[in-house]
């Protein structure tokens, strides 16, 4: 286990290095000149030249990278080209918003997807099963933006129960915070719930046919114990990994969802940064996103080992 952890952590270093190179290089391919953007209305060549020099844009790309990564390693992502705020501060401000949204989305996904999958498997071939499958198909094939708009229309405009947009931090007023994030979290979690449901269903169907489930029944255990203890424990092992991998989808899904609900999170930060050619922000946000994703994967692997005695060694 410790051996595995050490190996896994060692893999992270080259991965992150590769990601950072990739982010930096791709950045160079974007059209537009950041110096021109920063100069704004002023087209004085001397000013532009001065900006180029100040931000080391006149240096070769590898040198620029070296300067950037040196800062990143000590937590300095540079500052926004647009509003001069340190990128680190922007990230510290926006990341918790998206993390809250993501956490709520994954909780919603698990709360809907897993029970629905279990019910569908246990009641295979009945109306319950068809119903769950129908909603899964619906969940997978409904676009985020459409569902978001429909929810706003229903709950904010027609019923007036929930705010249509905006964000309140959890620490400020948790009720208002939940009210503001529940719709976007549902929009994000919905598709994942559908995927989890289908995988839980097929894993459960397979496990329910297994010899050890027959053994559990032969012991005289109640159906409840057979399904919720003996079958579920084994069926959910792969689902945990799947759920953690789906967290990556959450991060990308957040881009669109935050736009629809005007939530000042990571997704909105990166979209605004790209439109403004705010290179430092884009680089910082993408690198942090990659790190979060890699960390989630590591957590998924550890969770998989913890629930699977055969791998614990």
């Amino acid at each position, binding site marked *: 286990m410790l051996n595995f952890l050490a190996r896994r952590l060692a893999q992270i270093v080259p991965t992150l290095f590769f990601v950072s190179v990739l982010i930096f290089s791709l950045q160079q391919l974007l059209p537009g000149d950041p110096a021109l953007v920063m100069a704004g209305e002023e087209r004085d060549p001397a000013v532009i030249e001065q900006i180029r020099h100040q931000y080391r844009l006149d240096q070769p790309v590898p040198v620029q990278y070296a300067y950037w990564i040196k800062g990143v390693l000590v937590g300095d992502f540079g500052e926004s080209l647009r509003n001069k705020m340190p990128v680190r501060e922007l990230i510290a401000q926006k990341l918790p918003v998206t993390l809250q949204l993501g956490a709520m989305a994954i909780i919603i996904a698990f709360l809907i997807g897993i029970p629905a999958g279990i019910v569908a498997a246990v009641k295979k071939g009945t109306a319950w099963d068809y119903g769950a499958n129908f909603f899964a198909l619906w969940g997978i094939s409904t676009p985020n933006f459409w569902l978001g708009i429909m929810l706003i229309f229903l709950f904010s405009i027609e019923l007036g129960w929930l705010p249509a947009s905006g964000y309140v931090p959890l620490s400020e007023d948790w009720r208002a915070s939940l009210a503001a994030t529940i719709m976007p979290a549902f929009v994000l979690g919905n598709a994942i719930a559908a995927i989890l449901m289908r995988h839980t269903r097929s894993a459960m169907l397979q496990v329910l046919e297994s010899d050890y489930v027959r*053994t559990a029944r032969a012991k005289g255990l109640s159906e409840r114990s057979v399904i919720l203890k003996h079958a579920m424990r084994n069926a959910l092992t792969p689902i945990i990994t799947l759920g953690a991998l789906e967290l990556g989808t959450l991060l990308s899904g957040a881009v669109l969802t935050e736009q629809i609900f005007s939530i000042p999170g990571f997704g909105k930060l990166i979209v605004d940064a790209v439109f403004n050619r705010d290179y430092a922000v884009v680089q910082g946000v993408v690198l942090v996103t990659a790190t979060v994703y890699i960390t989630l994967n590591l957590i998924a692997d550890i969770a998989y080992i913890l629930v699977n005695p055969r791998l614990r060694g």
Partner: protein
Amino acid sequence: MSPLIEIRDLRIRFHGDDGRITHAVDSVDLSVANGATLGLVGESGCGKSVTSLAIMGLLPKQTTEVTGAIRFDGFDLLKAADQTLRDLRGNRLAMIFQEPMTSLNPSFTIGDQIIETILRHRGGSRKSARERAIDLLRRVHIPSPERRIDEYPHKLSGGMRQRVMIAMALACDPQLLIADEPTTALDVTLQAQILELMRELKAASGAAIILITHDLGVVAEVCDEVAVMYAGEIVERAPVDELFSAPQHPYTVGLLGSIPRLDQRAEQLATIEGMVPNMAQPPAGCRFAARCPFVLEACTRAPPPLVDVSPGHVSRCIRAPLEILVS
């Protein structure tokens, strides 16, 4: 004395997805007395495992139709409520399965799995259940059971796992133990050990045993009485010595003839010619007729009844007794 378990006219039908009905078991009559061991013999698919699953109430309800009666200690298992069956299973009725490698849950320690059975039926504290589990593991000769009890199944070999399965089956001192090919998946030296263990436990516990196998050698070693099944029917039932010395059904004769012997060289292994009939459309007459070397025209016309050939010995053959024919 009335038998511990008595099966009367058991019929089991499977309803397939395509609407076809398979006659898995037909009019089976069996009984086992307290402390006796019955061998249920036949080739794969003859209905012996299905019969045992019917006793345990473990056949899928949606697709199976079970009729007849299975009387256990006075009441009919086929008419019993699910809750009553659950109270019996693992308690007074226990079963050992063919596949030790996959019959234990990989996510729980063997101790948890045995303790669970004890707590389910006996209650009491977890601590005392654990002590009993250790004791059971010791009875099935698992070395250092105090340590082994906390291990997961994947750490144990096939033979060890089958011992754990046996310990689990014995957890509540069952009156009837069904062993469905307990040694088939194990190699030969382990088979002998497991059989020895079963004999030992039988002597110690006094439980009745139904031993399902296709291995006549196993039957000869452990059983008091033998029932031979073919294509869902019992074709012969006899005390074990008599079955081996004077078989009265051509199928049994064929089975005994197909045991390879070390003291005789044979170019080819003896086999019974032909195939088992398709049980979606069972033949009108004797089900073994198509493969029987002694077949008469009458055999294919009507299903033969079970006839008594000697006390306690029945055969489903119109030509029984067979002495003259065999010699």
